[in-house]
């Protein structure tokens, strides 16, 4: 009997401890509430971790946009404040933030990484929270209208570029390199297999492959004359190098890389072998647009003179700009009492938006897919140069 009592007491202690902890913690969680004196926009991004080279510029761009808007008088006269949340490229971390924010947030921005976004999307959809993040079209359909993509849909754009490129160059057989760990790439591979007649097969590039030589040889043995790089930058650059060095291609033109493959370090690792390689960058680095030039200068000033090269910069800037247009258009109040109605209104507005003035011309969303120019780039003399496919 005593033993049972002891157990009961222990359990009670345990639960009281938990409860005490919980109440202590509850106070801290209230910070995310929308104050009417300031628009607090929570923005998720992988600021640190393996994709920080994309996530940090993205959050910078959001802050830059907020600054610009505040200089011009804010949204409806109320200043905007970006509240950054660092997901560290970890879906679990992203989910944690979403659950913290889901009771109070009017809108959630980000994240830049597909796995984190897909983890979020389900809750965002159920809670009817509008969101702009990194999505491919299949997810956009599933969770409409609550989620939108902040840049062109890579799944569709990649496919278009690939078709154009193969037609323009007259290549007949295509092999894809892709990372089995990247969820978005897995979707693209399925798409290519269905829609590109020249598709021969895919070579899986496991994350952290030390020597990519075997993979290059494998692709060569398939007898392809065109190579699509969809794997992560680190491996893509090595595959590119091996393909050129082992004589699989006559020139870099036979290689086309996606945005995710052409990340930081691609040119450094691939070196001269990257010459002539094509890619979508989804961002025109040398765009003459005035807003972009200004942004670019400000970015350089904050980053030791490095120029902005990643599309989320444009995407996150546009996201905040679109939000301003939306809030003003709908007359959003931020009143917690009508939170649900306003969330739904914002989602509807964003999902099929009017033309909005962004940093590189105008953009809009059609069913959550961003309608924006995505220039093709080619590596020329160690730089990305915007070109057109003939």
């Amino acid at each position, binding site marked *: 009997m005593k033993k049972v009592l002891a157990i009961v007491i222990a359990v009670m202690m345990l639960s009281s401890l938990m409860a005490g902890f919980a109440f202590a913690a509850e106070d801290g969680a209230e910070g995310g509430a929308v104050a009417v004196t300031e628009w607090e926009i929570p923005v998720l991004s992988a600021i640190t971790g393996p994709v*920080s*080279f994309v996530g940090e510029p993205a959050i910078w761009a959001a802050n830059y946009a907020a600054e610009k808007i505040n200089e011009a008088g804010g949204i409806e006269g109320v200043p905007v404040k970006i509240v950054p949340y660092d997901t560290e490229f970890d879906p679990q971390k992203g989910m944690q933030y979403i659950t913290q924010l889901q009771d109070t947030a009017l809108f959630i921005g980000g994240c830049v990484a597909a796995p984190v976004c897909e983890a979020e999307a389900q809750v965002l959809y159920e809670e009817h929270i509008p969101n702009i993040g990194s999505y491919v079209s299949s997810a956009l359909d599933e969770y409409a209208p609550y989620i939108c993509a902040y840049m062109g849909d890579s799944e569709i754009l990649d496919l278009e570029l690939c078709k154009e490129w193969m037609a323009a160059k007259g290549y007949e057989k295509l092999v894809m390199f892709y990372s089995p760990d990247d969820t978005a790439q897995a979707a693209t591979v399925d798409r290519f297999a269905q829609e590109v007649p020249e598709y021969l097969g895919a070579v899986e590039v*496991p*994350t952290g492959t030390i020597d990519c030589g075997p993979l290059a040889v494998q692709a060569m043995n398939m007898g392809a004359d065109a190579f699509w790089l969809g794997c992560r930058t680190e491996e893509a650059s090595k595959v590119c190098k091996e393909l050129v060095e082992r004589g699989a291609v006559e020139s870099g033109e036979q290689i086309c890389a996606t945005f995710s493959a052409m990340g930081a370090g691609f040119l450094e690792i691939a070196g001269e072998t990257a010459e002539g390689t094509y890619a979508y960058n989804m961002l025109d680095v040398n765009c003459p647009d005035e807003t972009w030039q200004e942004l670019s200068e400000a970015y350089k000033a904050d980053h030791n003179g490095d120029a902005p090269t990643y599309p989320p910069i444009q995407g996150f800037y546009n996201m905040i700009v679109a939000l301003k247009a939306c809030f003003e258009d709908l007359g959003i109040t931020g009143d917690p009492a009508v939170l649900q109605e306003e969330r739904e209104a914002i989602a509807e507005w964003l999902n099929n938006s009017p033309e909005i003035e962004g940093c590189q011309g105008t953009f809009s969303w059609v069913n959550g897919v961003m309608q924006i120019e995505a220039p093709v780039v080619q590596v020329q003399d160690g730089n990305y140069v915007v070109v057109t496919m003939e």
Partner: protein
Amino acid sequence: MELFLAQLVSGLSTGGIYALLVLGMNLITLVRNVVHHGFSHTCIFTMAVGWLVYNKTGMPWLAFLAMFAAGVLVTVLSEPLFRPLSKRGADLETIVLAMGIGIILSELIVNFFNSGQVLSFNDEMKIFTTKFQVGAITVSVASIVALVACVVIAIIISTYLFKSSEGRAMRAMAQNLRVAKMLGVPFGKTGVLGFLIAGLLAACIGVICIMCLGYCNAEMGDSFATKAVILMLFAGQGDIKGGILSSILMGVVEAMALAYLPGRWAEAIFYGFMMVIIIIKPNGLFARKAKN
């Protein structure tokens, strides 16, 4: 056939790197009965330090010097952490402690070197950039150097451990700390000496990885570490010769798996195969007789 040969060559050079890592692990098990999961992280850390020094100063020799300093510093500073555990005879806990060291090193690389991005080295650091090309088969001088270095270092280390009196003392300490003390082996000094050698080896591996791979990042520490630890057990803890043989073997097996099997299965096959062997032969593939 061409494919097969190309894979064989690739496998050999990858195997050379594994062999060096396993050698380092074996060294640490032999001098202090510790399965040092963080050793691979130490190697990558020395590479990162080399990268930083080269990018700041532009002097490769200074970078190499800094790598050796970093390797020695990390291992010698981590040695006292293992001491209380070794004194308690807590062998299992040392594995966890070593993992802890590994995480800290990875985190340091992520936070303080190129903000977590890939660190790539230029030709001046890579030393040997010549490659021989026969069709699709590439043989780089660097990987030949790596294999030769692996054998030479293994011979030096095993001679030191098995023939010199200091080396014997280190092994005695790893086997039975109490008895070694009773025979007059100074615990602290000998341990530090052993870890110092491990640090030098870590820097050597760093230099060889720069030559063969030409880049590094924090994730590499993790993926190398688990492979190296399991390879070491696969060959038998403390078996230097077996470690090198099985590393090279697994390098080749991995390359073949990449070429002839779907890439997604390669990892499952690699680990599954080794686990089965380890369970069947717990004392290592090359162990002749079970302990009595």
